[in-house]
Structure formats: structure tokens, C-alpha cells
């Protein structure tokens, strides 16, 4: 078994949700070198957004950039478009956007955690996490009317209001979820075999995270305090909702799991705060003006910093729209993180990166 194997993972592989291709050079199943090719999903959305679609429609198109962070994409685009057409959206719309973003964060994190569990061979935990996640899918469906593609934020506000009975349903669901979250905490922390698989694998140090510009939970797991929510008070009132930065020190798979679980906890607090302090106001600010000038927006998607650059030219159609997805910044760190790991733990590491290649490739 001394000879070196070239192990291709992807484009179709059971432990991958999306087509990405890794080529591992391994000796004795220990990874020596890695090569990645990620642009399987390139569809040309940026081009279409500045030729084919009017700027009102674009907010639905960018939602289809990624099904997991669709609300983050639509919200970021709506914010940048609102900067271009120079309108201020009502407070209630801001709160509702925050509500859906946090719900989406919870479901995305739970999905990632369950995927980590399955890829480390713990099928029962995968099933358990997915089972708990379904509650949040139902909440999202009740709020937005669809399970994955929310189309909730539109230019000028949000598309539908929050019904009181829906709010009640969400609060009861959160109450029901709290003990379940503690159970998940217990398993992810204390299960011995899982810790064998997760502790000390796929390590990225804080220095590497800074050097390679890592974002999101991936970076926070290394102890790097970077979270756009703490920097963009002007767009959405995160601090009022009770947001706090969550970091872990050891940048391994286990730390990423912990960051995600604790962020889920924090998001639950934020959701209940948002629902309690929901201000009364119209939910949409209509406008007749056309986008002009250029603007940038940063937003914290479940996977990290989402960056939108838009340039308008006083017509229905934008001049240029640039989307920078979270995973885009993490690719170089992803390749680094595999070095000197067992091939056996590769699927778990990939899942713990929580790669979103449809965001990256667009």
C-alpha cells in the first residue's frame, strides 16, 4: 500500500451535493496534494442580469444563484438596488428581512451539520438533524410561501407581510426546538467516534485564515473575529436584534460544527427578538426612478460575506452586476485544509467547509 493513488472525487460523488471535482494524491490514504476544479455550475447569471432582465426582475434571478442562501442574495441585491434608486425602505421590511435571513441561516447550518454527520459515517445523526430541520422548512414555507426559493425581499421592501398566527407558529416552533438543539449539542460534542473523525482534521490556523482571506463560519472557527453583521448596522439593525460574534479557537471540523451550532442558538434569540419588537409600518416603498451610479453592499450569508457591486445607467437594465459569494473567498483555503489528512476524513472536511459552488460559479 505504499504506492501513491490519484483519487478523483467528483463531479458525481455520493458525498457531494454539487458538482465539484477534487483530485487527491494520496499515499497510504494520507493526502499529499490536492487539485480542485469548481466551475461546473457556471451559468452566466451576471451577464443575464445586465442584459436580459429589468432591475426589478433581477432580484428573483439572483435568488436562483443559490438555493441555500437565496434570501441573502435577494436581500443583498435589493439593498444595492435601493442604494442605486436612492430609497429608504420601511423599518418593518428591514425586520422581516432579518427574520427570514436568520431562519434561512438556521436551516442552512442544520443542513451543513447533518451533511458533516453523514459524511463522517454517522447516518443516524444525519437523520436526526434533518428531522429537526424540517420544522424550520415549514416555518419558512409559512412565511415566504415556498420551501427553498423564498423570493422574499424585492426592491423596495418585502413581498409579503408576516401574519400574527405565523409569528405564533414560529415562536412555538422555537420553543419546541430548544431541547432538541441541546441534544444535538450533546451529540456533536460528546460522541466519541464523531470526535475521532472531527477533532484535529482539516485544520486551518488563524494566520492562514487571515492570509487567505477566509470568511464566514470557516474563518470564525479559527478564532478570527470577522462577521459582516457587526459592520453593516446601516442596512439592517443587527445589534438591536441581539447579534453577537461567535468564535472558536481550534480551526478544525469540530470547531466549525460548534460555531454553527452556537450560531443557530444565537439566531434563535434574534428571531424571537425580531418577532417581539416588530414595528408597525408599510412593508414596501414603491419607486418610479431608475438605478444610477454605483454602489456596493456586504451581507453575512450563512456561509460568510456576500458582496454585491452594481452600476446603473438611468435605464431599466443595469450596467454591471458583480456577485462575490462566500465560498469564492474560501476556495484557496479549502485546498490548503486537506493537507496531511486521512482520505477517510475527506468527505467530512468537504462538508464542513459547506461549499456553495453554485454561488461561486454563478
Amino acid at each position, binding site marked *: 500500500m505504499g504506492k501513491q493513488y490519484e483519487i478523483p472525487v467528483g463531479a458525481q460523488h455520493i458525498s457531494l451535493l454539487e458538482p465539484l471535482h477534487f483530485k487527491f494524491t494520496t499515499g497510504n490514504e494520507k493526502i499529499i496534494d490536492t487539485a480542485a476544479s469548481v466551475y461546473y455550475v457556471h451559468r452566466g447569471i451576471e451577464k443575464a442580469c445586465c442584459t436580459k432582465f429589468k432591475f426589478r426582475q433581477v432580484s428573483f434571478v439572483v435568488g*436562483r444563484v443559490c438555493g441555500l442562501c437565496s434570501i441573502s442574495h435577494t436581500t443583498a441585491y435589493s439593498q444595492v438596488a435601493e442604494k442605486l434608486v436612492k430609497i429608504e425602505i420601511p423599518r418593518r421590511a428591514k425586520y422581516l428581512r432579518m427574520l427570514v435571513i436568520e431562519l434561512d441561516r438556521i436551516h442552512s447550518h442544520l443542513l451543513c451539520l447533518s451533511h458533516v454527520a453523514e459524511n463522517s459515517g454517522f447516518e443516524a445523526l444525519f437523520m436526526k438533524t434533518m428531522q429537526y430541520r424540517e420544522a424550520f422548512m415549514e416555518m419558512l414555507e409559512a412565511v415566504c410561501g415556498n420551501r427553498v426559493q423564498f423570493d422574499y425581499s424585492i426592491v423596495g421592501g418585502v413581498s409579503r407581510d408576516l401574519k400574527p398566527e405565523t409569528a405564533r407558529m414560529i415562536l412555538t416552533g422555537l420553543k419546541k426546538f430548544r431541547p432538541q438543539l441541546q441534544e444535538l449539542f450533546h451529540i456533536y460534542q460528546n460522541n466519541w467516534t464523531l470526535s475521532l473523525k472531527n477533532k484535529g482534521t482539516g485544520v486551518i490556523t488563524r494566520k492562514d485564515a487571515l492570509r487567505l482571506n477566509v470568511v464566514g463560519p470557516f474563518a470564525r472557527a479559527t478564532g478570527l473575529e470577522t462577521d459582516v453583521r457587526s459592520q453593516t448596522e446601516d442596512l439592517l439593525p443587527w445589534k438591536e436584534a441581539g447579534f453577537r460574534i461567535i468564535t472558536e479557537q481550534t480551526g478544525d471540523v469540530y470547531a466549525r460544527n460548534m460555531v454553527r451550532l452556537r450560531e443557530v442558538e444565537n439566531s434563535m434569540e434574534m428571531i424571537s427578538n425580531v418577532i417581539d419588537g416588530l414595528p408597525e409600518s408599510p412593508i414596501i416603498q414603491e419607486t418610479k426612478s431608475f438605478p444610477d451610479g454605483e454602489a456596493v453592499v456586504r451581507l453575512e450569508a450563512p456561509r460568510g460575506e456576500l458582496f454585491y457591486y452594481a452600476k446603473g445607467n438611468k435605464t431599466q437594465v443595469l450596467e454591471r452586476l458583480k456577485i462575490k459569494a462566500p465560498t469564492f473567498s474560501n476556495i484557496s483555503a479549502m485546498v490548503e485544509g486537506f493537507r496531511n489528512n486521512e482520505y477517510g476524513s475527506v468527505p467530512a472536511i468537504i462538508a464542513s467547509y459547506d461549499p456553495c459552488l453554485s454561488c461561486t460559479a454563478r
Partner: protein
Amino acid sequence: MNLKKYRKKSPWILHYNAGSCNGCDIEILACLAPKYDIERFGMINTGNPKQSDILLVTGPVTKRSRERLVEIYAQMPEPKVVISCGACASTGGVFRGMYNCEGGIDQYIPVDVYVCGCGCRPEQIIDGVVQALGILESKTRDIEQSLKLKNEAITEEGQTNRRNIAAEL
């Protein structure tokens, strides 16, 4: 004895993402989850084309993923059915006419069931699979080829060599 009726009792599914937005993929995952447990119908998510009967494809075919799609389709032994999950897999959906999309997987491989919705609910996926099972029962074991297949499958003493069956496009 007639084995056809057992086809619909153990459909093993294979999932390939031809450039979708993950919306439908996570719904397929949700189908495996306890709430809608599709193992009730005897389905297993095999990651292995050679042992699977149903191909679930999501996403408009992007230019880079189409060869894999055709390869995987060619590797699956007949009888097999293809289900296109979601608007963009069925017709291209919102990505219709974008420069790097082919607009629907049925430009490349024959699709039997189109599941609508963006992203398609697990209920819709289950309905689609149930319909596909009816089709699977009526299928024969002749080689089905993808629509844009360039070179024929080589047949030597009754065995089909599929090594170079996938189209170079």
C-alpha cells in the same frame, strides 16, 4: 416468472447535479430524511451509476457538466428512467437562454418525468418518482442512448462495451 413487477419495488436512485442552485438537491436530501422517508418505497441513494435505476437530475445542463451527465446516463444499465427535478432541469427555467446553459437536460438525454416547481417540493419529487415507477415497469432492456450521442456503443459477442460511449461534444 415475471420479474417486471419487482422493478417498481426497489428503485435505487442516483442523483446528479448538472449545475442547479442546490434548491432541488436539498429537497432530494429532505426526501431521504425521516419526514418523507422514501426508503418506504425501497429506494436507496446509491452513489453508483452501475447499480441504480432512476437518475434524478437537477439543474440546467451547464457546458462543463454535460459530458458527465451523458457518461453517467450511459453507465446506468437498462431499464432506467430519468427524472428532471425542478424548473431549470425541465426547461431551463429562469436560466433559459443564458450563454452557458443548455436549457433543460432533455436536450441531452431522454427524460421520462418532468418535476415542476422551483425548487420542487419533496411531495412533488415523490409524485414524480411514483409516476416514473409506472414507466419503469413498461420499459424494455434495449440500450437507450442519449440524444446527442456521437459514437455508438460497441457490441462485442453480445456484451456492450460502454467505455467510450459518452459523447464528446
